[in-house]
């Protein structure tokens, strides 16, 4: 019953992929910007979380709180001082700025932490929540999935029911009309980046607990985020979860049937197939016109 195990792990891992992708989806959906630094920002979150836990607080959850604050500030500064100024000049200059940030971050991490492989140690890492003859559910994977649901559900409520969330949606929908009702759309962009960075901090901790990481693994997660967002559709929250699960399933089923070496290939094949038949993504909210 190995296949049951692969299915289970695929779905649970999909949750992690969704958290990785959601920040990127948010930024694209709201300001039409592909944030090429998203993967490196996640890994920065991982390193910050690891360092804070090891050096200062000693507790991962407390460390996550600190990381969220740090990343929110970093996100605000990046958006306010760099990206917002570039967005006036068009999408391409802003894209290049995010590329530059990506290079700076991965090199800064290399300088500070060295090139060694790391992992975040925690007692739940080797634990299984359920273990039967046929399958087991690892605590880390379950945590990944639960975190994904919580992040996506909170974002949904925020966007749907608060004035701040409505302002974000209004800005992505009709930016001119948003200004006409008094929304400072530049500020909304900055706050949206902060939200994306909260999700990146959570993703960072989960990635660190689930896999080993290096300063240069950011690109790998950028590609996963791309995959999730492309499959699910840019700017759709449920689509992001679905995209994550499909990518996770494709990878683990690919590994199950063809061997571990084919895990990544299988994931991207599915991505290509979906791009061919439904290029706007499965649940695209078609926010951008």
């Amino acid at each position, binding site marked *: 019953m190995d296949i049951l195990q692969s299915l289970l792990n695929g779905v649970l891992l999909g949750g992690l992929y969704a958290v990785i992708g959601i920040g990127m989806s948010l930024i694209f959906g709201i300001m039409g910007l592909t944030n090429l630094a998203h993967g490196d920002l996640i890994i920065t979150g991982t390193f910050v979380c690891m360092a804070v836990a090891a050096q200062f607080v000693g507790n991962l959850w407390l460390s996550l709180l600190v990381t969220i604050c740090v990343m929110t500030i970093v996100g605000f500064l990046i958006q306010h001082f760099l990206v917002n100024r570039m967005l006036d000049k068009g999408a391409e200059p802003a894209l290049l700025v995010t590329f530059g940030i990506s290079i700076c971050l991965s090199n800064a991490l290399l300088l500070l932490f060295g090139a060694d492989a790391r992992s975040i140690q925690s007692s739940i890492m080797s634990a299984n929540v359920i273990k039967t003859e046929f399958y087991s559910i690892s605590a880390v994977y379950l945590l990944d999935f639960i975190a994904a649901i919580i992040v996506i559900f909170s974002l949904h409520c925020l966007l749907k029911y608060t*004035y701040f969330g*409505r*302002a974000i*949606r*209004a800005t*992505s*929908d*009709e930016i*001119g*009309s*948003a*200004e*006409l*009702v*008094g*929304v*400072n*759309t*530049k500020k909304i962009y900055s706050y949206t980046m902060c939200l994306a960075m909260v999700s990146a901090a959570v993703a960072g901790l989960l990635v660190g607990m689930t896999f080993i990481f290096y300063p240069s693994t950011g690109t790998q997660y950028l590609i996963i985020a791309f995959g999730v967002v492309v499959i699910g559709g840019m700017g759709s929250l449920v689509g992001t979860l679905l995209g994550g699960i499909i990518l996770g399933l494709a990878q683990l089923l690919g590994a199950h049937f063809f061997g571990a070496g084919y895990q990544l290939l299988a994931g991207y094949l599915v991505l290509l197939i979906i791009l061919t038949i439904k290029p706007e993504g499965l649940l695209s*909210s078609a*926010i951008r016109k």
Partner: protein
Amino acid sequence: MLKGGIMLEVLRLNVHYGDFQALHNISLKIKHGSIVSIIGSNGAGKTTLLNTILGFNKPTSGIVAFQGEKINAMPTHKIVEQGLTMSPEGSKVFQKMTVKENLLMGAYLPKARKDKEETLELVYDMFPILREKAEQSATYLSGGQRQMLAIGRAIMSKPKLLFCDEISLGLAPVIIKDIYQTIKRISQQGLTIVLVEQDVKRSLRYSDYSYVMLKGQIVLEGNSAELVETEVKDAYFGVNKYAKY
């Protein structure tokens, strides 16, 4: 502010798009409590003028002053905070939101937000169809209903001065009449309104004062009741004594 005082003053406004000059030395005054119409054909510069007053375009020279304060260096959302807003051309409602969410979005500013329930009732009374469709997505509204929603959204921000850009464009005459009568009623409650229109007859009938724009200039102005329709039409089309522009 006293009725009849100057609410908005535009002084020698020039606007360029690159090398092209879109507005030439525009000056106008809008009195408190009045309905003013800006008439002109397609491309006469009406929308450019509105976009400049509301901060979407920056003028090359000239002044826009609202209640005596210069506003032309402010970003749009700051200008809206002062009490100006617009129902934009083509209505531009938030399509991903329900009708009610659109209206509540109109009350985004703190000063509007605290009275949002009352203003919402007011708007629903003005346009009962919006109450009926409150929970529906704005995508499913007809053109006329969208226009009502855009006006309603603007009113939700409790403006002192409301610009309506081409609200009759593409609508059936009976719906246009309905919307115009509502606008007249809103104006009687003390709101100053600027109508931007291509329809000469209707503009003159519903406004107190009119400006006619031609090729980025104001070529004719006067009390709407005193303006002669044939002369307005000459100015509109740029013929006879207006051919020199």
